[in-house]
C-alpha cells in the first residue's frame, strides 16, 4: 500500500474515543444522570423532574425535564458536536460538553429543547460502532422553556440499580444544590435534601493567591456515616454539585469524639478551572487551596477546643511502629523483626528499647518510656533519626544500638519533610527496606524476592499506615 504525500485531517477511531470518554468517568452508570443535572444547574434551572419507568418488555426510560432557558438553534447545533460547549473553564461544571451525550451500546439519548420560540429534537445513539446524532421532529409538548433528556435502555439490571440508587446518589451529589434551592423530583416525589443537624456552625472565606473559597463549617450532633469506609469531613462542590470529598488533613489530631462530627462544605467555583473532565476530581494544582482551607479549619477547631494533644509527629511515629509491630506478630513475617536479629527487645515509643536476651524474656530490661506501645507487647522496633549529611544511605539498621536509624539529612528525606503524607510514605518505605535488606543477606534472598517482600509488607500495612 502506498501512502500519498500531503496534508489531511487526522482521523479518530470513534469506538476507541468513546471508550476513552467513558473511562474518564469514575462511575459510568451515573455519567448521564450527573451530567444532565449539572447542565441544568449551569443554565440556572431551578427544577429538574426525573421519571424512571419501564415502557415495554425489556425497554426502560429515564427522563429529565428542567425549567432552564432551553437551547436556541445555534446552541442546539453546537450541542450535537462532541466536546463543544459554550461554557468556559472556571465558570461552572459542564464545560467539557461530552458526558450528557454518551449513550451506552444498547441505549439511546433523546434531547428536546424549547427556547420559548422553537422546539428542537435529536437522538444520540451508537450504530456500527460509531456515534450517531439524528435530528428529528419534536414529540414533546413544552408549555414553557426547558430541556428534556430521555435515556432509553434495555438493561434490566441498570433499571434495578437506578430504582434503588437514584435518590441516594442524587442526594449525595447534589445535596448542596438542593439546599441552595434546586428542586429535584423523581417520579413526582420531591427529594428532600439532607440538612445538617449541628451544635456549631461557622461560615468564612479562604483567600489564597487571589482566589476565594467560601465555606461553612459544621460541628454535627451525630457522627457522619462513612463513605467507602472513610469519613469525608470536607465536601468540595461547584454550583451545588459535590466534586470530591476529603478527610480533614488534621483528622487524627482532632479529639476522637469529634473526628466524625466535623463537616465542611466548600464552594469551589473559584478553583473550578482545576476540575478534571470527569468532574469528580481536581487536578493537583488545587492542593495548595485545600491546604489553605485545612489551615483555616484547624484554626476553627483549635478555637472550639476540638484538637487533641497527639501531634501528627506522634501519630506518624506510632502508626508506623504499631503497624510493623502488629505485622511482626504474624508468623509469616515474625522472622523480619529486628528484635530477633539483634537479640534486643525493642519498644516503639520514644525511648530506646530495653536490653534483653535472645530468649523469650528478650523484652525485659529498661523498656521504652511510657508511650511505648509495642514494647510492652514484646515485639516491634524503635525508630531513631540521625543527621548524617555525608552518609548516602537514607537509613540503616543499627544492631548494636538497637534501632533503625533514619537519616534526616538524606536528599529523599529533605524532599519529603514538608508534607506529613510524603514523610509518612518515605519513612515507611525506608524502614521496610532497611528491615528487609538486613534479613535478605541472612536468608539469601534474591533481589526479586526482597523486592516482592517489601511490596508485600507495605501492602499488608497500607491501611494502617496511610491515614
Amino acid at each position, binding site marked *: 500500500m502506498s501512502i500519498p504525500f500531503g496534508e489531511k485531517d487526522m482521523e479518530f477511531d470513534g469506538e476507541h474515543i468513546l471508550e476513552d470518554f467513558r473511562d474518564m468517568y469514575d462511575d459510568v452508570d451515573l455519567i448521564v444522570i450527573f451530567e444532565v443535572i449539572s447542565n441544568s444547574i449551569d443554565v440556572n434551572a431551578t427544577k429538574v423532574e426525573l421519571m424512571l419507568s419501564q415502557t415495554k418488555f425489556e425497554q426502560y426510560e429515564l427522563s429529565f425535564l428542567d425549567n432552564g432557558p432551553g437551547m436556541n438553534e445555534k446552541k442546539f447545533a453546537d450541542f450535537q458536536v462532541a466536546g463543544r460547549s459554550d461554557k468556559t473553564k472556571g465558570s461552572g461544571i459542564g464545560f467539557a460538553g461530552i458526558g450528557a451525550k454518551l449513550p451506552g451500546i444498547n441505549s439511546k439519548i433523546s434531547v428536546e429543547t424549547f427556547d420559548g420560540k422553537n422546539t428542537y429534537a435529536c437522538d444520540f445513539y451508537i450504530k456500527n460502532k460509531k456515534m450517531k446524532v439524528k435530528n428529528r421532529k419534536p414529540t414533546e409538548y413544552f408549555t414553557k422553556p426547558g430541556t428534556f433528556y430521555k435515556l432509553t435502555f434495555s438493561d434490566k439490571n441498570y433499571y434495578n440499580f437506578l430504582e434503588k440508587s437514584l435518590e441516594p446518589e442524587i442526594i449525595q451529589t447534589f445535596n448542596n444544590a438542593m439546599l441552595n434551592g434546586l428542586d429535584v423530583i423523581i417520579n413526582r416525589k420531591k427529594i428532600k435534601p439532607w440538612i445538617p443537624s449541628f451544635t456549631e456552625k461557622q461560615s468564612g472565606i479562604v483567600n489564597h493567591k487571589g482566589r476565594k473559597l467560601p465555606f461553612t463549617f459544621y460541628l454535627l450532633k451525630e457522627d457522619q456515616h462513612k463513605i467507602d469506609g472513610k469519613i469525608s469531613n470536607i465536601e468540595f462542590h461547584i454550583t451545588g454539585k459535590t466534586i470530591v470529598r476529603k478527610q480533614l488533613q488534621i483528622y487524627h489530631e482532632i479529639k476522637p469524639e469529634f473526628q466524625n462530627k466535623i463537616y465542611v462544605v466548600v464552594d469551589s467555583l473559584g478553583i473550578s478551572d482545576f476540575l478534571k473532565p470527569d468532574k469528580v476530581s481536581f487536578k493537583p494544582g488545587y492542593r495548595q487551596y485545600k491546604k489553605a482551607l485545612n489551615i483555616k479549619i484547624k484554626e476553627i477547631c483549635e478555637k472550639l477546643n476540638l484538637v487533641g494533644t497527639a*501531634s*501528627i*509527629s*506522634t501519630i*506518624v*511515629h506510632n502508626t508506623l511502629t504499631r503497624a510493623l509491630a502488629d505485622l511482626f506478630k504474624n508468623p509469616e513475617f515474625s522472622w523480619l523483626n529486628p528484635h530477633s536479629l539483634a537479640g534486643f527487645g525493642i519498644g516503639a515509643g*520514644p*525511648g*530506646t528499647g530495653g536490653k534483653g536476651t535472645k530468649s523469650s524474656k528478650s523484652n525485659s530490661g529498661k523498656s521504652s518510656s511510657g508511650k511505648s506501645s509495642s514494647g510492652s507487647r514484646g515485639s516491634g522496633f524503635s*525508630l*531513631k*533519626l*540521625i*543527621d*548524617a549529611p*555525608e*552518609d*548516602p*544511605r537514607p537509613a*540503616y539498621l*543499627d544492631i*548494636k*544500638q538497637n*534501632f533503625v*536509624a*533514619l537519616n*534526616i*539529612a538524606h536528599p529523599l528525606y*529533605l524532599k519529603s*519533610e*514538608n508534607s*506529613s503524607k510524603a*514523610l509518612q510514605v518515605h519513612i515507611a518505605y525506608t524502614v521496610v527496606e532497611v528491615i528487609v535488606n538486613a534479613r535478605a543477606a541472612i536468608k539469601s534472598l534474591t533481589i526479586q524476592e526482597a523486592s516482592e517482600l517489601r511490596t508485600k509488607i507495605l501492602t499488608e500495612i497500607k491501611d494502617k499506615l496511610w491515614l
Partner: protein
Amino acid sequence: MALKQESQKIRVKIAKSDNKFSKSKIDIIMDVSNVITLGSEIRSKTRKFKKEYLKLIADAKKIASTKNKKFKKKKKFSSLDWWNLGKLLDDFNTKIENEFVIKNYTQAISRDLEGFELSDTEVGVIRQFARYFTKDEVLEEISIAHYRDFTWKRNQLLEHGILDQEKNRLVKMGKEKKLPDHKKYRKELQLLVIRRGGSK
C-alpha cells in the same frame, strides 16, 4: 517547614559513630517526634549542638590533659582541676538544657574523654562537686577524694540539716591542715549521718 511548633525539648542521645560514611566521631540521635515537629529547623539546632559538644570535649581534654597518662609533663591533678572540669561539664548541660535533653550525657562524656579513665559515675560526681562548691571553697589542701566523699553524702547531710555546717567544717579543717585522710573522713561522715538519723 515545621508541621507544628511545640515548645518541647529535643531529646538526643550522643552516640559514638560507627558509621563508616561519617567524618565525625559522634552521632546525635534524635527521637522521631522532635524531628517531625521541628521540621528542617532540627538540623541547624542539632548541628550547632554537636559543634558545641565537640568543643566541650576539646576544652575538657585541655583541662584534663595533665591527668592523661599519655601527657608528657604529668603533674598532680589538683582538686581545682577537677572542679574546673566538673564546672565545664555542668555548665554545658545547664546551657543546653532549655533546648535539649541529653539522655546519656555522663555516659557520653565518660566515653568521649578517652584516655582519662573516668567512669560515668565519676563524671556525675565531678559535676556535682562543681555544683556544690564554689571556686573559693576548693582548696589545694583538700583532696578530690575528700570532696568526693562529701559529695556522695551531700543529700543525707542536707536531709539532716547539717550540710552547711559540715561543709564549713571540711573547709576549715582543710585550711588548718587538720584533715584526716579521706578514708577516715568518709567514716566520720558515715557516723555523722547515722548519729543524726538515730537522734531523729
